[in-house]
């Protein structure tokens, strides 16, 4: 496909813009992309900058010197680098930047707590706790539906699970 601007080079940059549901597509070569303010990703409102700005926005809007200097002891990534790239350097980074991550994750996912699969080796306890939480949610649904007989059964099951979890801990 030829570049839509210069009509000479092969289009290698493919750009889709969606504004209020209206979709516009642009196929251009690298050269023309660099000259186009909309496609120039150094533009302060480019997608990349908005995305990393999101990271910034969730920490207080005033840059905090001590947070910026937080450095991961394992991979050496500091917080300002994370802010720039939007990518972690290693698993330890999560611990290092923990305090700043909860609002960020809430912004991206609308949640800040994992509720899915738990590695069986990592933690049987966590898996049980997760299961209990899920069962409790179902219990509430049953109560709301006034299915009391089923609810009573489920309540006993939850109690038993909670008890065994407690016993294991002791």
């Amino acid at each position: 496909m030829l570049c839509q601007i210069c009509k000479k080079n092969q289009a290698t940059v493919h750009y889709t813009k969606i504004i209020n549901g209206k979709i516009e597509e642009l196929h251009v070569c690298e050269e023309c992309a660099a000259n186009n303010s909309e496609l120039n990703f150094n533009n302060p409102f480019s997608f990349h900058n908005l995305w990393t700005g999101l990271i910034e926005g969730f920490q207080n809007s005033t840059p905090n010197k001590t947070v910026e200097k937080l450095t991961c002891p394992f991979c050496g990534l500091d917080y300002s680098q994370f802010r720039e790239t939007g990518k972690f350097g290693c698993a330890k980074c999560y611990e290092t930047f923990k305090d700043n991550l909860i609002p960020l994750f809430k912004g991206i996912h609308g949640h800040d707590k994992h509720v899915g699969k738990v590695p069986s080796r990592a933690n049987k306890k966590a898996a049980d706790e997760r299961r209990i939480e899920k069962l409790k949610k179902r219990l509430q649904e049953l109560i709301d539906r006034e299915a009391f007989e089923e609810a009573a059964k489920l309540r006993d099951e939850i109690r038993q699970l909670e008890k065994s979890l407690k016993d294991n801990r002791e």
Partner: protein
Amino acid sequence: MVKWLEESGQYKDVVVSTRIRIARNLNNYRFPQRMNVQEAEKLTQEVLNAVKDMPDDINYKFFKINSLNAAERVAYIEQHLISPGLIQKPDHSSFLLRDDEKATIMINEEDHLRIQVLLSGLNFEEGWNLINKIDDFLETSLDYAYDDRFGYLTACPTNVGTGLRASAMVHIPCLSIIGHIDDMIRGFSKIGLTVRGIYGEGSQAIGDLYQISNQMTLGEDEEEIMAKLKNVIYQIINKERYVRDDLLKKRKYEIEDRIFRSYGILKYTRKISSKEAMMHLSNVRLGKEMGIIDNMEYKQIENLMIDIQPGSIQRIAKRELDDNERDIIRARHIRQSI
């Protein structure tokens, strides 16, 4: 012939394929973007050792990206067996491909491991069972990075938690004809789903093919994510089928003409671009879906959609081709296959 397409799946008249991938990382290694070649090599060995005793009756073949030529790399992407991200750092990356091509374990993509399962038609259940089994097995010997609060830890915050991206590729030419695609994309984004082109993030929609996937990975468990997705896919299937019936009733000759013209072009073309070929193949597939064309199988059309892409056509020709040659060989390949 692409192996994973051979099995016939459910709802093939709308759903081409189901893909599930999970992102996993190991403790004590930097993430791929920040690691050097030695670390990458060490991690790769560790994964290979873990895979060795997989209690699967089917073997895995190992490929290093830097031992594949440019066309082969692209051809694997075109067959959806690896992601475009895997060929960005050829010295770091490799993959294990299950012999039936239903599963790929990508090593050192954006994350240390990206496990993917690919099935024909709509089939989240089998897909999840298979990927879960592979994951459970690898976990017994690999030290996965996992946090009680945040779940599976990933290089990008958009994957943290389940690390799960589940998607279905749908062929919806009639929703496109009546102009409902934009509404669909807008509606889905409101419920946390994303619509993309056929090669994933940032890719263009071609051949009326769209990939619908979950956006969020934190706060919903895997089954909830896939149940929601499945529900939405069912709605798409029903809507597309309804519009097909309706169009066939109201605009029969227009639709038939469109399908048979495309069939004719593909049968007699001497030179054709991949974009044009995709458009006609999409119409031919619609003909099959509507029962108008009955001498072709879904897998035949889907294979052609892959074969005609730039990397695959060069692999078929067994040599490098320039644009002009590609268009000629593509036309010949299509004529011989139709």
